[in-house]
Structure formats: C-alpha cells, structure tokens
C-alpha cells in the first residue's frame, strides 16, 4: 500500500516537474500509409505525434494474423525517415499484417493504433518510364503516337502483376486534361490534335487491384502545321461560293429597278391622240379638252368670205414662206393642237375649208387686201396650198411665172393613184406629188387675172412620204370652184376648153412647170378611197373669189370624185344658180367620208354643207 502510494506520489510529482519543464512522453504516432510497388515488398510510413520535448525513438512492430509472434521492422532506413521497409523475405501475401508503431522517449512511450494490412491490396506501382510522343504523318493527317515502358520494378513478365495504363493530354493553356485508357498496351495513338500547337503528355499505371501510380513527368510534343486537304478544299469552295452569292445578291438589290424593268417590261398604256396627260394631271381641264376640240367648229365664221366669183389658184412660194413665217404661225398654231396627228380624220379636214382666223394675219401675199389665207401648218404634216383670192391685188395670180417669182400652188384635188414611191425632189422643194388637177376653167376675178393655172409649184412639203401615197381628199370638191365656168368670168389667160376635162398632173418639172398626164379614162380610179398623199384638195378658205387650198397629204383619194365633179361641174357651169349644184355636190359629198364643199351655182362655195363626219 505504501509502496504503491509512494510510487503514485512520485510519478505525480515527476509529471508535474516534467510539465513544468515542458517535457513529456511522446505523442501517439500514427501510421499514415503502407504501399507495395510490385507486390513483393512494401513500405509503411508513420508520423510522429510529438516528441514531448525529449528525443524519441520509434519502433514498428508487427505480427501476422493468427500468430502472436511479434516482429520488429527489419529496415528503418531504406524508405527514409519514419518509415519501415519490408523486403521480399519479410513480405507475405494474402496474409494480414498487424502493424503498430511505438514511440519511446525518456519519459515514456506511446503506441499507435494498429493497422491491418494485406499486401495484395496496397499495391501502387511506380510511374511508367521512357514516355515518348512522336508525330506520325498519315494520309488522313498527322497524329501523335505516345509510347512508354512499364515501371522497372513491376514484373509483368511472369504474370505476377498486371498493369493497366492511362495517359492524359492537354495544351499548355487548357484547364482540363483529356484522359485516354490504354489498357495493358504500352503505346497509344492520339488523334484530333490541333495543328501547330504544343501538347503535354503524361502516363500512369495501375495494377488490376490496387492504386494508381503517380503521373510521369510531362512530355512535350508539337503538332506540325498542316491543313487537312479535303476539308480545306471544301472550305475554300464554300467560302468562294458564298462570296459570289453575296455579291450577286447585293448587285441585284442595287439594280432591282432595272431588273424589274427587264423581267416585267411595262405595258404601254393607251394613248389618245390629242390628249395630254400632263394637262390632265395639272388639273386644267380646259386645256385638256381644248386639245380635243376642233377649233373653229362648227364653223362660225363669216360665210361671206366663202363666196367667191372665181377662184384664182396660184402657188406662191413667198406666201408659203410667209405662211411658214412665225408671225402668222402663232395665230394659226393656237387653233391647232401641237400633238395633232391627224388620227381618225378623213381625207379632207373640214378645218381646212373653214376660214381661219390666221388668214387675217396673212399679208398681201399676192392676193391683195383682205385675203385671208390659211396658214395651216400642222407640224409639217400638211402643206397647204394657199390660194389667193382673186380679189387680191397682187400680181397676176394666173401667170405661171409670177411676176414676183411667187409660185402658185395648184390646188390638189386628188393625187395620183400611182404609187408615190418615186418622188422627185425639186430644188428647195419637197417631194412632188402627183396631182390631178381639174382644169380650172373659170377664174372670175375682178382683176381679170387668169385664174387658171396649170402650174404647180412644189412646195416644200415637210411631211411624210406616206401621205403622198394617198390621193387627194374629197376636198377635191373644192375644185369645183375652179371648174365653175358659171362664175362668169372667163379666164382670160386660159383658153376656154370646150369641154371639161380633168387633167392629171404628172409631175412638176424644175421650172415649175406642170406636167400633165394625157387624158385618160375618166372612169378610172373609182376606187381609192383610202389613198392618201399629198393633195391640194383641202380648201382652207375662200375669200374674195380666191380659194385657198390646203395641201393635205393625209386625205383619201377621191379619184372618182373628180369625175363626179366633172359631171357636176357640167351642170354647174351651165347654170347660173348655184343651187342645182348643191345637191349634186352634196351627193358626191355623201359618198365620201368627208363632206366636200358645196359649190354654189355661181361659184360660191358653201362650206356649211361641209360638216365633218366626226
């Protein structure tokens, strides 16, 4: 009792002293791990728990299962500090080891917790060796072939240990590794690596039942700079075609208007002659409808002016020139629409038979005062024959060679039915026309100027050739006037022909001589209603016994008209009163789409009858 009590007290005091001195028995060590690299040897490591301030020694003791024999660690040095290495002789497989570590210092010792170890289950091989990564060039593209060797210590040859390998690859900048399992083989082909990049490769291994080894040192491999041929070609083709498509699309977009025009050409809208769209848009309805209105219709002019005793027809070049002059053009132009294209009009425009105001502006163009001459210009479509009233004081209108050089225009009743293809171009003159001119038998003029002119002066006809193909219009009725022998005044200059004969003008020679056809069948050319051409059948105005004819090339041919007129004229000439002539004339008029002029018996031309069909 005393001894034990004394011992207790002593130990207590010793503890106090040691605690005061800062020393104690060692702390409890702890076995951290035991590993076997090749399943033949193994090593155990422990960590000390604290030395307690005093030098401490460690000892490892073990005993096998089902055996109480305790052995101490055979080798403390091979594996380093705080380790115990069990060599082949001391290693037994499939046997549990009960291992403990004892820490001992001056004050005591401490025993770690025991650990049961079966060597078979603690195998962790060394890292593989000689890792090589080689770039292999293949037709599909280069790849990397990684090869290595087994860890030196592992004996796979005898089948004692079986190792499974694993490698991982990544670029320097990547975060994640790409892991590949290689199985038991010692090489691996890595595909799908990017060209011109450097890669890091590591390998490790593991026994079939055990722990993974550490990763090997990094092996660097650089992929060559290559372009996959097939893919590159297709990439280029794709890019090129996309580029072209973009360009085409952009071009189409820019030129979409013209493309639209090309693909869907605009259909021309209907156009009405004489109708100005702009005028309609501008809102001035008056102007629009004015164009459609025929100026001067219904005729409201003074009919007195139409009454003539005789008609003096001559071609006045000067007049023509004057008429073409600007001073008169304005007035006349007013009445005319600039876009008058003579559509739908008959051979003889009634306008031409009406007294135009513009005639007033006409100077004394050889016809004396008060002679109104129509200046009828339709943009050159028609040239007109101006006939001066016989009342004019001008020079002798009947003389073919006018004194002042003026040339008279023979009123064209109807043009020749012959094709107008051959036109003779005179000097300074337009194409000639074939005119069949009735014989002007009567020319009543107080001035006794011969009114019968077989002279035809070719005027400058700035008109279309096509017009020439048509004979004169029905205004040839106006020629009745010329045939009015009943006017009373004989044409002194012209020998009175015993009978009315229609003379057809063949052509006009350069000397302004009228060449006439020989008399032919008067019954010829009954047809030819629709012949147009240059003709002087339009009577523009009759004033002072001067019949102003208008040269109109768009009139229809009324060849037979002349014959009728012939008959009519016969009647008319023999009779004084003009009335009988009227109906005759009127009948002939009715045959025509246009109505001709009604000829009075006394030579007066009644234009009232002449109503346009439209």
């Amino acid at each position, binding site marked *: 009792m005393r001894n034990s009590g004394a011992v207790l007290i002593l130990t207590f005091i010793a503890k106090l002293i040691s605690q005061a001195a800062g020393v104690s028995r060692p702390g409890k060590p702890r076995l951290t791990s035991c590993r076997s690299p090749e399943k033949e040897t193994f090593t155990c490591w422990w960590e000390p728990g604290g030395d307690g301030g005093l030098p401490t020694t460690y000892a490892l003791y073990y005993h096998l299962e*089902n055996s109480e024999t305790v052995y101490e660690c055979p080798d403390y040095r091979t594996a380093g500090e705080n380790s115990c290495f069990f060599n082949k002789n001391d290693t037994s497989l*499939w046997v549990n080891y009960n291992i403990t570590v004892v820490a001992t210092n001056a004050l005591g010792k401490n025993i770690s917790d025991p650990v049961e170890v079966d060597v078979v289950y603690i195998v962790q091989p060394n890292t593989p060796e000689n890792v090589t990564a080689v770039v292999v060039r293949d037709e599909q593209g280069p790849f990397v072939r990684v090869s290595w060797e087994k860890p030196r210590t592992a004996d796979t040859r005898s089948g004692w240990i079986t190792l499974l390998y694993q490698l991982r690859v990544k670029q320097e900048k990547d975060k994640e590794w790409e892991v590949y399992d290689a199985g038991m083989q010692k090489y691996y082909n890595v595909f799908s690596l990017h060209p011109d990049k450097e890669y890091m490769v590591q390998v490790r291994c593991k026994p079939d*039942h055990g722990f993974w080894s550490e990763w090997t040192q990094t092996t660097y491999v650089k992929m060559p700079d290559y372009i996959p041929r097939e893919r590159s070609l297709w990439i280029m083709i794709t890019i090129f075609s996309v580029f072209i498509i973009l360009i085409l699309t952009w071009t189409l977009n820019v030129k979409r208007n013209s493309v639209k025009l090309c693909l869907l050409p605009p259909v021309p809208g209907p156009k009405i002659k004489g109708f100005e769209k702009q005028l309609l848009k501008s809102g001035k309805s008056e102007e629009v409808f004015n164009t459609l209105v025929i100026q001067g219709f219904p005729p409201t002019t003074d009919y007195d002016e139409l009454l003539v005793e005789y008609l003096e027809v001559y071609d006045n070049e000067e007049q023509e020139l004057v008429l073409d002059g600007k001073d008169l053009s304005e007035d006349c132009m007013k009445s005319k629409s600039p876009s008058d294209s003579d559509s739908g009009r008959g051979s003889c425009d009634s306008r031409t038979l009406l007294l135009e105001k513009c005639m007033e502006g006409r100077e004394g163009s050889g016809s004396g005062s008060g002679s109104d001459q129509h200046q009828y210009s339709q943009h050159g479509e028609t040239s007109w024959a101006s006939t001066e009233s016989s009342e004019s004081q001008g020079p002798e209108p009947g003389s073919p060679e006018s004194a002042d050089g003026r040339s008279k225009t023979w009123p064209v009743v109807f043009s020749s039915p012959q094709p107008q293809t051959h036109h003779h171009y005179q000097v300074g003159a337009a194409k000639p026309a074939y005119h069949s001119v009735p014989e002007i038998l009567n020319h009543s003029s107080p001035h006794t100027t011969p009114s019968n002119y077989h002279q035809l002066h070719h005027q400058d006809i700035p008109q279309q050739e096509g017009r020439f193909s048509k004979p004169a219009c029905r205004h040839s009725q106006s020629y009745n006037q010329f045939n009015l022998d009943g006017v009373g005044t004989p044409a002194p200059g012209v020998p009175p022909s015993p009978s009315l004969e229609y003379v057809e003008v063949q052509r006009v020679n350069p000397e302004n001589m009228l060449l006439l056809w020989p008399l032919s069948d008067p019954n010829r050319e009954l047809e030819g209603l629709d012949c147009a051409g240059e003709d002087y059948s339009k009577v523009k105005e009759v004033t002072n016994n001067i019949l102003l004819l208008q040269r109109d090339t768009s009139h229809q041919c009324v060849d037979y008209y002349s014959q009728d007129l012939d008959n009519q004229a016969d009647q008319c000439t023999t009779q004084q009163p003009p009335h009988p002539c009227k109906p005759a004339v009127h009948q002939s008029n009715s045959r025509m789409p246009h109505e001709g002029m009604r000829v009075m018996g006394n030579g007066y031309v009644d234009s009232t009858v002449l109503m346009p069909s439209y």
Partner: protein
Amino acid sequence: MSRSLKQVAVLLVALLCLDLHSRVGSAPICAHGPSGCHVPSLADLFDRVIQHSARMHSLSNDLHSEFEQYFLPSKNHIGKIYRKCHTSSILTPNGKENAQKLAREELTEVILKLLMAWRDPLFQLHQSMAHQQDFNSFSSNKALEMGDMAHELRKGVEKVAERMRVLGMLGNSVTGLSVAEAMLPISDSGEAMSNYELLYCFRRDSNKVQNYLKILKCRIVPEHDC
C-alpha cells in the same frame, strides 16, 4: 425359375445400359477435328479462364466492401474478429518466388483444390444471404452468381489441365484432380463462419486463384500479355 430368369434379364439389361453408359463418354462435338468447329487453343482457354477468375474476384470484392460498409463500419480493420479461413489448410504459395518454385502440376492442383473447397461454402453463403432480410436482392444475386462462377471456373481449370495433360505439359504426378474433396467451412472452433468471414476468406482465395492462373499461363503460353 421365372424369378431367376427375370432377375437375370434385369441384370443383363442393367449391364448393357451400364456398358453403353461407359462407352458413351462425354465425347466433344468437335471430335472430328477442326473442320467441324473451332477448337480453342490452350492460350485461348487460359484467357477465358483468367477472365472468369477476374470476374469472380471482382464480385467477391464488391460483396466484401458492401459488407464492410453497411455491417461492420470500422477503420483499418480494427475491432474485427476474424477466424481462420477453412482453406488455410491448403498450402498455397504466399509470394512470387514461392509460386514460381511450384511446378505446373502443383500449381494447377492448388487452384483446383481451392476452387473445390469453395463449392459448398458459396452455396451456403448464397442461401444465408437470400434468407436474411438485411441483404437486398442485388447482393444475394451477386452471391449466387459468384457461386456459379466458381463452379464454372473449376470446370474450366479442369479442362485446361486436361488439355495440358494431353499436350504433355503435365506429368502424371497430378493426382489432385480426382482427390479434390469438398471441405466444409468449419472453423477451428467448430462454429460456422459468418457471412462476413466467408466473404473475407473467399475474396482472398479468389485473388489467389487469379494470380496463380496468370502465373501458370505466362509460364505455359508466354506469347502475349506476359
């Protein structure tokens, strides 16, 4: 007379049947050579057997860890009371040198002994696991599969041994084939081993079998994987 005649007739018939039985051996289908079917080579046989053993060992490993995880939570095997495995009486090499020192016949014999010793215990294991409600069906199925696999593995190894004997690799000293006896899993104390102990022991023994087979293979057919 009639009785004796009948007896004789029965005996004759029995003899004939027996004779027929004895003559009709287990002849392989490919008795007429390679033209009939593909005869696996010894290497192929070894490979199959080794794969089989690997599969068996992984099953045992899984079952053991399940046991440890759910039923015996202890670190570093502390507090675990284990008894000797019933197969500890079988002398097995516990190292590479020892295993390499053994002759092929002995090694083959050891393998067969081990496998034979576990035929009945595995059946018992499965039975006990199936009856106990603690185990899920998955585990009991594993145990059943494990038992079947051990049985087939034994058969396979017997075939390999047969082939080796035919090829002349094995001497006539192999007597363990027919001597392998079933052993009862009775520990020293006479108590039946628990399931956990059985699993523990079988895990170890399956590892042994796999290892020995690999050694045997690399010693006999070292062409590949060695």
